[in-house]
């Protein structure tokens, strides 16, 4: 570039700092609006009693035209709070990579995906003429206050990813939560009012080298719109019900007989589904093989005996 022109551009930039400032602010305004997600922590009442259990809701709201399909969140909380558990019955999350859990003292983390992405929740019975896209609930965390004093729940990791096929990280705004635990000691537990069992679900039998070293594995995922799924149990031929998590390698390899899976929600309602695997090339146990051989020999002997018997009868008649 010509040296004189370059000098003039520099001079212009220096002389018009206000114009340039306005220019950059305008650009930032437009661009930031196009890439943002808001994560918010909410509770019904910011003053709680000691030993009172309460919900803290985690909401996700993408900006207009933004679409989020995955998140990875970690929250830190003050030492006068204890994390009890979570409820995901009203969650927008379809598949949890990690359900809310405490991996280190004072930190609860969770991650999951929303296939195809989430761009806001619509309630068709309560349409808003200005903006129909409402925040979606990721999870309801249950905490209890231990000691009197101020407490906090803060985001210390918040990754939200765009539904763009590349996993592009989005700029995420956060709204932390401050709660005051007062002097009163009023022990209470959260009342879970849910009488509806989990929805029917399907079980898939899979065998893949990348899953449990190629073992036969059952895969399942149930939904419960009330309180969410608390745990699963599985039962195979000759075994009792035992706790299970999907993916679940079957006890019998290859599986034999019908396999039952029970999904239980946080209020104890359950739904049982079953699968009868039809495994090709299934290995037959050795005792079954011997039994089959004996049976075949017996049938052959009976046929021979019957033919000889008929022949003898005919011979006598002649």
């Amino acid at each position, binding site marked *: 570039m010509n040296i004189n022109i370059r000098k003039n551009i520099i001079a212009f930039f220096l002389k018009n700092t206000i114009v340039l400032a306005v220019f950059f602010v305008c650009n930032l305004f437009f661009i930031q609006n196009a890439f943002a997600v808001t994560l918010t922590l909410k509770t019904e009442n910011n003053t709680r009693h000691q030993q009172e259990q309460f919900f803290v809701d985690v909401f996700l709201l993408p900006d207009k*035209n933004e679409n989020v*399909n995955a998140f990875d969140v970690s929250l830190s909380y003050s030492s006068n709070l204890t994390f009890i558990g979570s409820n995901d019955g009203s969650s927008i999350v379809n598949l949890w990579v990690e359900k809310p859990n405490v991996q280190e003292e004072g930190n609860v983390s969770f991650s999951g995906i929303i296939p*195809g992405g989430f761009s806001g929740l619509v309630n*068709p019975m309560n349409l808003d003429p200005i903006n129909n896209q409402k925040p979606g609930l990721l999870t309801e965390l249950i905490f209890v206050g231990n000691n009197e004093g101020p407490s906090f729940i803060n985001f210390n990791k918040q990754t939200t990813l765009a539904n*763009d*096929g590349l996993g592009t990280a989005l700029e995420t705004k956060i709204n932390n939560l401050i709660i005051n635990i007062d002097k009163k000691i009023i022990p209470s537990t959260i009342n879970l009012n849910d009488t509806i069992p989990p929805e029917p679900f399907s079980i898939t039998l*899979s065998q893949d080298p990348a899953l449990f070293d190629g073992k036969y594995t059952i*895969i399942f995922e149930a939904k419960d719109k009330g309180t969410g799924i608390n745990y699963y149990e599985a039962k195979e031929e000759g075994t009792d019900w035992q706790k299970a998590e999907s993916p679940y390698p079957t006890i019998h390899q290859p599986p034999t007989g019908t396999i039952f899976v029970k999904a239980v929600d946080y209020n104890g309602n359950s739904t049982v589904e079953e699968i009868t695997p039809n495994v090709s090339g299934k290995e037959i146990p050795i005792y079954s093989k011997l039994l089959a051989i004996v049976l075949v020999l017996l049938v052959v002997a009976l046929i021979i005996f019957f033919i000889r018997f008929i022949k003898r009868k005919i011979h006598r008649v002649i």
Partner: protein
Amino acid sequence: MKKFLFCFIIIFILFFSFQIKAFTVVSPPQPLLISAIVVSPGGGNNGGGGGGGGYIVPTSVTFSGRAYPSSKVSLLKDGQLAITTVAGPDSKFLITLNSGLSEGNYLFSLFSEDSAGRHSTLFNVSLFITSGTATTVSGIFITPTIAVDKSEVKQGDNLVIFGESTPASDIVISVHSPIEVFKSTHSDQSGAYLLNLDTSFLDYGQHQTKSKASVANEISTFGPIVTFKVGSSNIFTKGGGCSLVGDLNNDCKVNLVDFSILAYWYKRANPPTKVDLNKDGKVSIVDFSIMAYYWTG
């Protein structure tokens, strides 16, 4: 004064180029129409009569819109396949789910499969379903499918970009290189479209392409992304096979089984190559995001 004007023009052009870029990121949404009516027994919308039978109209949700002529349209409920239908010859479809719905939040996803088995991206809507209501979502425009005839094209040769959409629609094809380029074409009466792209303006290296459709004031969002390389030779894409990103067990679906395989390797050392979708040597939330984009249920 001339130099001042020259500088001003440069700044002006820069300013507007930024704004245009910002606006192109935000594509206009589809004109979706969402409504719900109460259909519980005795309700006004259900008509009178029928007393004493305890007749309960099930909670239902109906989706309608455009896909491709005679294509299979699938509806996923919370990420799992719930029901399928076939679009009419005019590409219009209507699909109703009236079982397995209780009151609560649901994520509904629709996608279509063209005559060659290529998939659209998911159309998603998160709805709060009220028990005893009939919800309708209309004006859905399923994204076009897309494919290229070469995985590598010799610079300057033509690359054929093709796919399917609703019949007689305007197709805009985006080619991502350092500068995003837009080309347009039309789909025929069978919904098929084709563009011969002269690649002489493209640099050597990896590029991406995607397409969207518009017809009668309705517009789809951009569909699946397909990558190709501009190099020194032509390598034609192999026909057959589904080769879906995220299909880890090769069953031509991206579903709970694939998710389970990925979840098994989450934070584990030395994951198999096929599981590490973004090839960064580990399974992280980014791999799950990539899988969620290509989800078929």
